[in-house]
């Protein structure tokens, strides 16, 4: 049992990283990674929401959709759950602790439209994960996202100082360096064969 969980964690963080391998969550990945501090804040908020979203969407799937045979409503139910959940959590944090809101809360609205959150919910369903496996996958996916965005923020801060051709400045050079990072992550490709076979 624990071997499966370890396999899920390694796959979500390294082998099939959500951002660099599965292209989930690219918009915030490129948008919010200009400074290391905002990238870290974004990462932690994504971990929190992905774990929560994975767990709750699993409950809605196995508690409501499958028994009633309404699988075709998955998209509507999941996005409704995620959007309302995030908006509610944002209001709670904004009211209860402004300090935490300043550090993490401001990232919450951006997370509703993040492909990674809805993406992980769909992956959990298609891989027939159990409740525990889904939550772990959500958590590991968040950690993978944070790893990618923090590394990328470091790269982008160097980019600001480096001399890039005028036309490539901004998004183009960021995309190209993300491509090179993705090549780096290819190194983990057969980590599984190494560990598990």
């Amino acid at each position: 049992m624990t071997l499966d969980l370890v396999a899920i964690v390694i796959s979500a963080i390294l082998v099939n990283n959500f951002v660099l391998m599965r292209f989930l969550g690219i918009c915030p990945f490129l948008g919010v990674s200009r400074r290391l501090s905002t990238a870290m804040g974004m990462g932690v908020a994504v971990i929190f929401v992905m774990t929560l979203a994975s767990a709750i969407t699993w409950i809605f799937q196995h508690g409501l959709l499958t028994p009633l045979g309404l699988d075709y409503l998955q998209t509507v139910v999941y996005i409704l759950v995620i959007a309302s959940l995030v908006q509610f959590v944002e209001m709670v944090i904004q009211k209860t602790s402004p300090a935490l809101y300043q550090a993490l809360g401001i990232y919450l609205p951006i997370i509703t439209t993040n492909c990674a959150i809805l993406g992980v919910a769909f992956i959990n369903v298609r891989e027939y994960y159990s409740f525990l496996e889904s939550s772990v996958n959500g958590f590991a996916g968040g950690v993978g996202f944070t790893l990618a965005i923090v590394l990328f923020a470091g790269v982008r801060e160097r980019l600001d100082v480096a001399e890039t051709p005028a036309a490539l400045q901004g998004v183009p050079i960021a995309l190209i360096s993300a491509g090179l990072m993705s090549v780096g992550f290819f190194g983990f490709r057969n980590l599984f064969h190494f560990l598990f076979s």
Partner: protein
Amino acid sequence: MSRLRKLVDDFRNGIIPENPLLRLVLGMCPALAISTAVMNGFWMGVAVTFVLTGSNLLISLIRGLIPSRVRIPCFIVVIATFVTVVDLTMNAFLPEMHQILGIFVPLIVVNCIILARAETFASRKPALNSVVDGLGMGLGFTLALVIISSIREILGTANLVVAGWRVFGAGLPFNPAQVMVMPPGAFVTLGLIVGALNLATRRRSRRAACREEARS
């Protein structure tokens, strides 16, 4: 007459000046993931265009009834409905393409372009303009997707498969660079295309500035 002019402008707007993918750099998740083959890019573009036009129409029709506090969830549900309709119809009529595009069809619902257009445009403009804007944006997105995926497919597999027909027959003479159909290739291709577009507009604006300088 000016109304028609306005409609044409709205339509043309989404294709070049405000191309969602290459100009505003939004909605990249699907663009990077499925642009390994030109047919994937085309059908994803068609799906996004349908959802965009449909949701723009419905949102601009019901925009008066929705209280502002619950605006985002309502728009999201409307968009999710159109996405599920596309998901089901594609599964029925194009099962293979539906399986290839996988989770990126339902993921259209969180595609930044659609919610952005719904919010900035559809919820403030009359229905006709919204539909035209949706079409324009969708077409721009499809165009950009087709361009990216054909570049990647040609470089990555030395061939181009359009609706089952192999354009280059046995394949182009060069040895295909397999990295182009892998994730790194996607990032680099999109980066270079956006860069090339910046170069073109920068050069055009500089030439315009010189002309203006010469005149003043």
